[in-house]
């Protein structure tokens, strides 16, 4: 009586009750599908986002004052730029301020104002023009009243109309007003999912000159774009060291995409564990369904069990037969569940933009199949024990 023989008997018995087997299977299919799909979707989201992050920011270090370190924040300035000038990076010092724009007299909405140097897309590759042009270095230095809108700002202010050449009325704190002319628009950020706030990019000197909250000659943050294959950790360490002499300890914060990525990875793992745990509940329910159907099957086949024992089957052989039947059932459910998950994941990968990387980790598949086999083993133990315990004489008399 080998394993192969048992599997054959199991498949025959399951096939004999096709509809019932299928229905019992369904719980496991759904459970395995849920676990596999949710875990893999998490992986796909991470993979997609990480890939976008890499294309956008992996070669970037961000520096900004730590506003929580105390009241007296020492902002970044051109001396800091010079201090970093020997690093293998392009430096993009930026200003960030709040403001409002006026649609009609009396109708104002808030908007984020970002001061950048001229020709910023050449330095910061996350800035991609959708239309028009960026203000030049000389326009920027002159503090020209030129503005670039991000996609959100375009839709908020102009809807579907072409914003190029139009004027926007900006209103600052204290009611100061000024007008800027739109000369360009940017593409949405790959990871923003339309959720980024409305932003206007303006020449930094323009904001210094017009905005009452601006600090002349000061910046809110630096974007450091790495050259060639410079090592991001080494560059960040050098930048920290170079600026340490000019700023007190812990008054500056440094970010890079690596730390973002690991933070994202942690969130994903937590999410995966949570989702996996919730999905496992459906496996538990499925397992109870299997136990139920196996108990029914044992009762129905009492005479078969009696006969097998009369013909020389030992209790262990009967136990093995029903255990294997339960495991075959749940394993089949597992296979169907994984296939279903693979199909759905593929569909997601071709339809959802930020999950375009199809991921079905072999570990996930092996885990899903092992868990489904284990569910069969666990929930099959009791029915199989009942079958094994049956008295042959009683069983043969069973009607």
């Amino acid at each position, binding site marked *: 009586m080998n394993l192969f023989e048992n599997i054959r008997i199991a498949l*025959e018995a399951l096939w004999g009750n096709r509809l019932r087997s299928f229905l019992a299977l369904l719980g496991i299919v759904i459970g395995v599908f849920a676990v596999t799909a949710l875990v893999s979707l998490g992986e796909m989201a991470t993979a997609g986002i990480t890939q976008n992050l890499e294309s956008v920011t992996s070669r970037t270090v961000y520096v900004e004052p730590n506003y929580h370190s105390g009241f007296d924040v020492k902002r970044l300035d051109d001396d800091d730029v010079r201090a970093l000038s020997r690093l293998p990076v392009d430096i993009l010092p930026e200003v960030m301020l709040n403001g409002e724009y006026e649609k009609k007299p009396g109708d104002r909405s808030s908007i984020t104002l970002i001061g950048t140097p001229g020709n910023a897309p050449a330095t910061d590759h996350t800035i991609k023009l959708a239309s028009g042009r960026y203000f030049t270095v000389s326009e920027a230095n002159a503090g020209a009243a030129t503005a670039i809108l991000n996609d959100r700002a375009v839709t908020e202010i102009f809807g579907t109309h072409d914003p190029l050449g139009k004027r926007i009325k900006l209103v600052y704190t204290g009611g100061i007003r000024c007008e800027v002319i739109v000369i360009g628009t940017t593409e949405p950020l790959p990871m923003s999912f339309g959720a980024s706030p409305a932003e206007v990019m303006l020449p930094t000197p323009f904001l210094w000159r017009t905005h009452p909250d601006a600090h002349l000659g000061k910046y809110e943050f630096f974007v450091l774009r790495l050259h060639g294959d410079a090592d991001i950790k080494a560059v960040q360490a050098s930048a920290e060291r170079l600026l340490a002499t000019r700023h007190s300890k812990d008054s500056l914060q440094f970010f890079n995409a690596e730390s973002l990525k690991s933070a994202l990875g942690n969130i994903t793992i937590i999410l995966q564990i949570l989702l996996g745990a919730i999905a496992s509940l459906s496996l538990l329910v499925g397992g109870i369904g299997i136990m139920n159907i196996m108990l029914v099957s044992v009762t129905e086949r009492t005479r078969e069990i009696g006969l097998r*024992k*009369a*013909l*020389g089957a030992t209790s262990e*052989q009967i136990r093995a037969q029903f255990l294997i039947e339960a495991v075959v059932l749940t394993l089949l459910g597992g296979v169907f569940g994984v296939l279903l998950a693979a199909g759905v994941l593929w569909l997601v990968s071709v339809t959802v933009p930020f999950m375009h990387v199809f991921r079905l980790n072999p570990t996930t598949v092996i885990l899903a199949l092992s868990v489904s086999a284990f569910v069969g083993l666990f929930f099959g133990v009791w029915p199989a024990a009942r079958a094994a315990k049956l008295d*042959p*004489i009683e069983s*043969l008399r069973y009607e």
Partner: protein
Amino acid sequence: MPSLVEIRGVTKVYRTGSAQRTVEVHALRGVDVDIAAGEFVAIMGPSGSGKSTLMHIVGLLDTPSDGSYRLAETEVAGLTEKQLALVRNRRIGFVFQAFFLLPRETALRNVELPLVYRGLSPADRRQRATAALEAVGLADRMTHLPNELSGGQKQRVAIARALVQEPDILLADEPTGNLDTRASDEVLALFDALHVDGKTIILVTHEPDVGARARRIIHMRDGSVE
């Protein structure tokens, strides 16, 4: 020559009822039976006479409460459940009133069944099962399912399933109980032929004309041999 079946003072007591009030049923009250190899014996008696219990004990489906049962000179009283299964598989061929064929398996697969538990290779099983079906005259029904066979054919498949074990004893429990006269004759003729071949056959029945086919009759009444 020692007996194949040697039963001495075997009793069987069943306890039924609740924990507070157990009722003892004495199914066998000290039975002595000897059956030699090659014999064709009928065990007869009314229902409740203990003939089924005796058959179960002879067939190792049940163990005596007391007394000794030696099968082929081996005491079976102390055997474990697992050992009993092994001895059943090697030495006892059962034929039941209700045939007990697996409905989803072909005649051939049904006959192979005891050999599955013997651990024979599929080719070996197939060969022996084919020979057994040929021996009962069903060479042309091997791939049929039980519901495609007549009652007499089903019982012949069941006999083939017993023969394939090459058992010491062929144990038939009311083998004609579910059959019409013609099919009964068919099956009993097969037993006659097997007896002539030298097989040991024990037939349990309450029908006198069936019992009359045997060379010796053991009459049972109230748990004892008359």
